């Protein structure tokens, strides 16, 4: 259980990082918090020739409060997100989900960008960022590009990032007035990857009807799944318990979660439906869902 040999590089600037990635292509792997990558190295499931450690590239970490929303540096520790008062005030969904990510010792090293780039469909941050319409900023020697969270995840552990690209930040736009959020998941043990879950972002108009909805599902497929059918049912409705139930049922109609030793596909589907129902109900109930 030791990593295979590799060449270790720890650049201090983004330019050097990009040059290393351009030079080594798919022989190189970025090391951020290492909380997913180092276990993979220890198991020898990954054997990169070059490890490019971005922990010394200071501008990649930090949370910036901008007029249009929060810019979260890719190398921001998950624990920094958890402790940020700006995040708590402006993006309560992120503050809520981050507590479900692994354990305190892991969040002290694990990064926001690492969780997104790792692209585990059972990870909380990808599901939350998709629900929040976040965009991810990728940089390479060829320039910068902005990718909508919904377009970023391709399949299990695979994203649209090219070999020479590094994720540098995530932009999380401010929510419109009247927005409430909630997240629910079920795991066998706190801190473990969950069997299923859902993130919900609802905006209500002055009359109390839902004017905009985002429902994204955790561990429902090989990427974070956006439940368009549920969103359609919610928009225009005054969301009560019956509407929540109906929308949750619609959310899971087209998913086929993969079963494993922790539960078969049907069981997982019912877990996701129940979590989705609870999250919608909580986001819709005044004084319950957190105001965004």
């Amino acid at each position, binding site marked *: 259980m*030791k990593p295979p040999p*590799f060449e270790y590089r720890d650049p201090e600037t983004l330019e050097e990082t990009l040059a290393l990635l351009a030079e080594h292509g798919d022989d190189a792997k970025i090391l951020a918090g290492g909380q997913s990558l*180092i276990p993979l190295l220890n198991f020898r499931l990954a054997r990169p020739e070059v490890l490019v450690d971005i922990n010394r590239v200071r501008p990649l970490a930090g949370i910036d409060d901008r007029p249009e929303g929060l810019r979260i540096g890719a190398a921001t520790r998950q624990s920094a997100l958890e402790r940020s008062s700006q995040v708590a005030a402006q993006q309560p969904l992120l503050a809520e989900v981050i507590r479900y990510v692994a354990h305190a*010792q892991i969040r002290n*090293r694990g990064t926001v960008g690492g969780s997104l780039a790792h692209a585990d469909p059972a990870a909380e941050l990808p599901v939350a960022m998709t629900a929040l319409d976040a965009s991810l900023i990728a940089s390479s020697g060829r320039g910068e590009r902005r990718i909508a969270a919904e377009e970023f995840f391709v399949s299990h552990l695979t994203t649209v990032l090219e070999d020479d690209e590094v994720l540098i930040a995530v932009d999380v736009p401010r929510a419109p007035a009247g927005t409430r959020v909630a997240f629910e998941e079920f795991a066998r043990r*706190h801190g473990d990857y969950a069997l299923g879950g859902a993130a919900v972002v609802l905006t209500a108009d002055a009359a109390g009807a839902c004017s905009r909805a985002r429902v994204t599902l955790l561990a429902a497929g090989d990427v974070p799944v956006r439940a368009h059918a549920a969103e359609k049912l919610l928009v225009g409705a005054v969301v009560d318990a019956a509407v929540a139930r109906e929308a949750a049922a619609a959310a899971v109609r087209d998913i086929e979660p993969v079963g494993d030793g922790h539960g078969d596909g049907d069981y997982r589907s019912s877990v996701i439906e129940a979590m989705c129902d609870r999250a919608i109900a909580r986001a819709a109930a005044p004084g319950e869902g957190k105001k965004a």
Partner: protein
Amino acid sequence: MKRDVEIEINGETYARTIDPRMLLSDFIRHEARLTGTHVGCEHGICGACTIQLDGEPVRSCTMLAAQAEGHRVRTVEALAAGSGGELHPLQQAFHEAHGLQCGFCTPGFLMTLEPLVARGEALDREQIRGEISGNLCRCTSYQQIVDAVVLAIERHGGE
């Protein structure tokens, strides 16, 4: 390619030439010869290898030794050393409340919990369980570990 590193552990600097793939847990145990830090799973699950990096609990098996350069590493050996060779109050509480049996997991629990107790956080039993969710113990069933933390928190508050 080998790499020269200088790593500060418990206030002492260890200068070594290492293979960059060396895990911090192995540097601590084999290079610094501080064997209080235990290694269970080597993939981030069990928490036995928990140390503090700049005061924050982290796993030493999911970090490369080279990444610790420029940071302060603190291991379980620092606890008694900081209490004049006597057991640190948290260790004393584990001892009295039977918070350990085989003791394999204990260094990890101590390094996870010590900053919380030192900050004087008033945690209830449920919250304590949340805080130790990243540490596995195969012996105690956790009851006495929680008892030990309750005791340590009481005493810290009473000081």
